[in-house]
């Protein structure tokens, strides 16, 4: 394996959880709901994914357990904010706190146990291709899911009637409601999708990235995913670009350090954040387009009048 290949692979592993969690949150926010609980749902996915894989010995079961755990956490959020109409910001923050605490409790017996690593794909000949073989044909299944998700979410949001309806709900829930669109039901589905994605992103962390369980192992990646959604002005391919840029710069700075080029490490560590923000702000500098893509009803409570 050449250095180039190795770097490409680590970048993909670093970018995948951000991409998946951000895509999920994108759909949630496009439907007009702001769920700040990504970090909490992600860590629930990580712990449940690890636990299920550890118990059954199957990384696939772990992955589905992670997805379910994320979706279940988001259901709690949905019930509170959509049915009981609580404040979305406060509820989302509470969900993060709850997730961090609950995952530590669930995971207590799993600390220090070796995990199950999800096997990477291997296709004879194709995987052995020089330079891109490993990147295109030799990665873990969650990587391929993340790519399919990017394509799928783009297609769903912009090419299907259901996607149009979802965006309409996010732009103006009152009008959508007046047209007979089931606003709350659509938002529930969006929130569930977001939770499932966050759970999957968490499972990627504990099954692929670092196959072990340690408390707090998401270490703020949920928040980065949240920020990506906003800086990418709610567009799936920009999220893809942002996640990979972030991954590339974070891995690149580690290599630069190991080479000893002598730039202060504090600056290098902040570089992924700086670079991602600058690039995404630059590509979103067209105000009219950005406004067009911002879900106008984002974070506003909706109570259907009969």
């Amino acid at each position, binding site marked *: 394996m050449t*250095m180039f290949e*190795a*770097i490409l692979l*680590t970048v993909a592993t*670093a970018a995948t959880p951000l991409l998946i969690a951000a895509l999920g949150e994108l759909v949630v926010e496009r439907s007009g709901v702001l769920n700040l609980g990504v970090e909490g749902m992600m860590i629930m996915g990580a712990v449940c994914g690890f636990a299920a894989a550890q118990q059954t010995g199957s990384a696939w079961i772990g992955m589905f357990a992670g997805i379910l755990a994320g979706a279940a956490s988001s259901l709690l959020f949905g019930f*509170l904010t959509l049915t*009981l*109409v*609580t*404040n979305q910001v*406060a*509820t989302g*923050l*509470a969900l993060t*706190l*709850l997730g961090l*605490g609950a995952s*530590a409790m669930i*995971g*207590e017996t799993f*600390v*220090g*146990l*070796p995990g199950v*690593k999800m096997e990477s794909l291997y296709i004879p000949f194709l995987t052995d291709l020089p330079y891109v073989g490993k990147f295109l044909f030799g990665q873990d299944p969650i990587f391929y899911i993340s790519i399919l998700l990017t394509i799928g979410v783009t297609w769903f949001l912009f090419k299907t009637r259901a996607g149009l309806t979802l965006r309409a709900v996010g732009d103006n829930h009152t009008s959508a409601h007046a047209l007979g669109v089931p606003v709350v039901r659509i938002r529930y589905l969006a929130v569930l999708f977001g939770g499932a994605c966050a759970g999957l992103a968490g499972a990627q*962390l504990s099954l692929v*990235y*670092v*196959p*072990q369980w*340690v*408390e*707090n*192992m998401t*270490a703020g*990646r949920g928040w980065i995913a949240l920020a990506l959604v906003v800086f990418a002005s709610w567009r799936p391919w920009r999220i893809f670009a942002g996640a990979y840029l972030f991954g590339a710069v*974070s*891995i690149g700075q*580690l*290599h630069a*350090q*190991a*080479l*000893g080029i*002598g730039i*202060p*490490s*504090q600056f*290098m*560590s902040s570089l992924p954040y700086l670079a991602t923000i600058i690039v995404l702000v630059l590509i979103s500098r067209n105000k009219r387009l950005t406004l067009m893509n911002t879900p106008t009803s984002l974070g506003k409570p909706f109570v259907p009048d009969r």
Partner: protein
Amino acid sequence: MKKLMMALTMAASFALAGSAHAADKLKVGFIYIGPPGDFGWTYQHDQGRKQLEKELGDKVETTFLENVPEGADAERAIERLARSGNKLIFTTSFGYMDATVKVAQKFPNVKFEHATGYKTADNVAVYNSRFYEGRYVQGVIAAKLSKTGVAGYIGSFPIPEVVEGINSFMLGAQSVNPNFKIKVIWANSWFDPAKEADAAKALVDQGVDIITQHTDSTAPMQVASERKIKAFGQASDMIKFGPETQLTSIVDNWGPYYVERAKAVLDGTWKSHNVFEGMHEGLVVMAPYTNMPDDVKKLAEETQAKITSGELKPFTGPIKKQDGSEWLKAGETADDKTILSMNFYVAGVDDKLPQ
């Protein structure tokens, strides 16, 4: 509903500090930088706390706050422990230093113990461990075993505690192979398993065949094991994460110190001090030497014995600084003050120290 939410959030924040109360027990509080389940730094402090509870039984009652960030938040957390009746508070990370001193001024009757710092006061003691003694042994092993002659070093923050370790590792390695090299990556975090894993991967990709870490998670050990190279554990015995990978690990053994200091408060003999203890006092323990040939193991054990007896001090001249200037003359040993404020590399380290 809003009320229920509030109750939920409040319950969540209280749940973080598990405690009950009793009148005449000595309440001892701990502030942790990571979760007790990190299997590294915080895990070992928590083992110390458990030993304290076990040995002193009914006489003490312990509380801990985990995942407390260094900085302004730390001050609030320490103050909360002081207000809730803790009479002895251990703050277990370098970055809590100023916060500890500040809170200590407000609570003259509470005793504070800050780990790995250097600021003391009448009610603030400092305790530190000579981890670097273990690093020296690691350096010896690394230089014996490495085929590429390059080791990878994952650092957290460029503070004296970590710089000491890098220098000592280097000196140990140079005692075997004068041309030994190390590549340093700063993670700028004490605990971020994914980032530590990335750093380890980057180091392996750049050709190191032994990894040592001064960050707190077991992720680098796991990467080393996947890539079939060797690694040293950190803070606790990490053999479970690399049964065929771990060479040894520096195990921080805080228990005896915690018991001694709690007893001192109970007896009324507690005094502020600044202690710096290592292998000799049993604060630094090495995990079993594994995955190495017998001759290397023997050399490691001999080195450890010499350091324990005081015959060998890692920072003994002649040592040059990185820039080539003389630091210690032949036979001269560094004093604790210099060691505790070390902010330079010794000759041979390839990294540029972030200032």
